[in-house]
């Protein structure tokens, strides 16, 4: 972790003492008293509020973050999705272009909701230990549920290696928002002396530093435009009694 996390206020205090005798009033701008990774996460979200997916720079999407996200999914996601789409998700993981597309899609999906949501970073977790926890949990789970009998452990090993390589010094920044999506998790990596954002999610398992939403907020989120469920409908036969009884009244 680079030095200078709390240097802003210190500089301000020194300047204030040094300039104390001067008549002219000098205002010293200071950086917010927050960690560099929190600052990176806040800047990224502020950027989304103004510019949508233009905030995702070429090369910013990270295979390490994608690997961590897939491990988190394997450790806590739906077995239905894991059973049906693991090869597809691994295929995406093998293509940097598709990983970037996924990050851009995620940002675009939440851009409108985040505008005015007032999200700000409140806490951060080191990603290194979370990667290990997710990988261990994913391996145990796939084995316990008899999902993917061949190749899964190799795939988990590969995802862990990718995540380790990039995120060993990274952080998971938890952000709170007064409105939908209420919680936002931003991943950062530390490289060449600075933190940069590598991905985001609105849901992280509790075992990996996430939090369960209040029930009132769950209901709001299910109506969120970002999830695309508003106004969705399923086709029913013309003669069906209704969505609860989708068969003809003649047979009832």
């Amino acid at each position: 972790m680079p030095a200078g996390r709390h240097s802003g206020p210190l500089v301000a205090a020194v300047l204030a003492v040094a300039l104390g005798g001067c008549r002219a009033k000098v205002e010293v701008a200071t950086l917010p008293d927050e960690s560099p990774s929190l600052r990176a996460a806040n800047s990224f979200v502020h950027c989304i509020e103004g510019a949508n997916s233009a905030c995702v720079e070429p090369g910013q999407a990270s295979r390490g973050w994608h690997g961590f996200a897939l491990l988190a999914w394997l450790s806590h996601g739906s077995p239905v999705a894991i059973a049906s789409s693991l090869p597809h998700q691994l295929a995406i993981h093998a293509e940097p272009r598709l990983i970037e597309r996924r990050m851009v899609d995620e940002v675009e999906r939440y851009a409108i909701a985040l505008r005015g949501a007032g999200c700000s970073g409140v806490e951060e977790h080191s990603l290194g230990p979370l990667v290990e926890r997710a990988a261990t949990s994913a391996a145990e789970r796939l084995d316990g549920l008899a999902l993917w009998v061949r190749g899964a452990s190799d795939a988990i090993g590969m995802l862990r290696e990718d995540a380790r390589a990039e995120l060993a010094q990274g952080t998971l920044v938890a952000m709170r928002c007064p409105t939908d999506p209420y919680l936002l998790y931003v991943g950062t990596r530390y490289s060449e002396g600075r933190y940069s954002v590598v991905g985001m999610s609105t849901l992280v398992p509790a075992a990996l530093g996430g939090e369960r939403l209040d029930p009132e907020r769950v209901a709001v989120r299910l109506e969120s435009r970002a999830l695309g469920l508003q106004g969705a409908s399923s086709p029913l036969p013309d003669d069906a009694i209704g969505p609860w009884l989708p068969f003809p009244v003649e047979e009832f």
Partner: protein
Amino acid sequence: MRAWLVPVFAMLVQGTEPSAGFSTTVASHVERSVGVGNLPGGQGSEVVPGVFITLGLDHLDVFDHEALPLSQGRVADATPSPACRSGCARVLFETMEWEWLRLAVEGATLGVDIPVAVHFAAHRDVPAATLLQAAYAAAESRPVTPPNLSIVTSSAGRGLRSQAFFLLPPEGLLLQQGSAALALTIQVTDGKLRLSGSDSNLGPHAQASNLGQLRALLVALKKRHAGKDTVVIDPGDAMTTGELIELIAQVKPHFSRIVLSRGQTIRL
């Protein structure tokens, strides 16, 4: 990822191999959670991929994680949820709504569909009323439309099977005049099986004391209403899941479409 690893990774993508079937996954969890041998025995169709909810005597699991404690197979705090039109318990409704949100976020992020099927694997001694509450909670909280529902049974030599059922709408059902619906309903109260419906021969007090008597009544009804396939069963508060499955097994040969109710009624 290092460049030389890319072909290795592609090989892994092609080399991953699914398990023997989704029912194997369900069975793996059910065995650990309540024991497959404790499920009610019965026939049915293949267990298709879907959400699986396991109800034991002291816990309710969604997929493979414990979501809620139960006490003797019942929800300890039965305070109803204002959002659950059937009056299901708040804790159940909120648990299921949270699970649907998780699935919706997963679906949006990974480009996968939200499951359309929900299976209930209940210990045979769990009250049917708890199973029905959980079913209404899962169905009412699902975004868009109610899911396809089933009870998981254990079939000797065939593994787990899926017994499909529907639910009466949470507010009950009002059928228009002239709909010609039979609306055959079996209500279990005080150990009696009371039958009702629009058939004039049923009378206001048609009932059976045991499954044999019920079978005879159903055979006669089916002869008069060959085009009807549906029966509504309200198991009441005392019946267990195992007893409900036994009842369904008697009913299905005559009326193959099972609709369950926890007090919801049909108004003709």
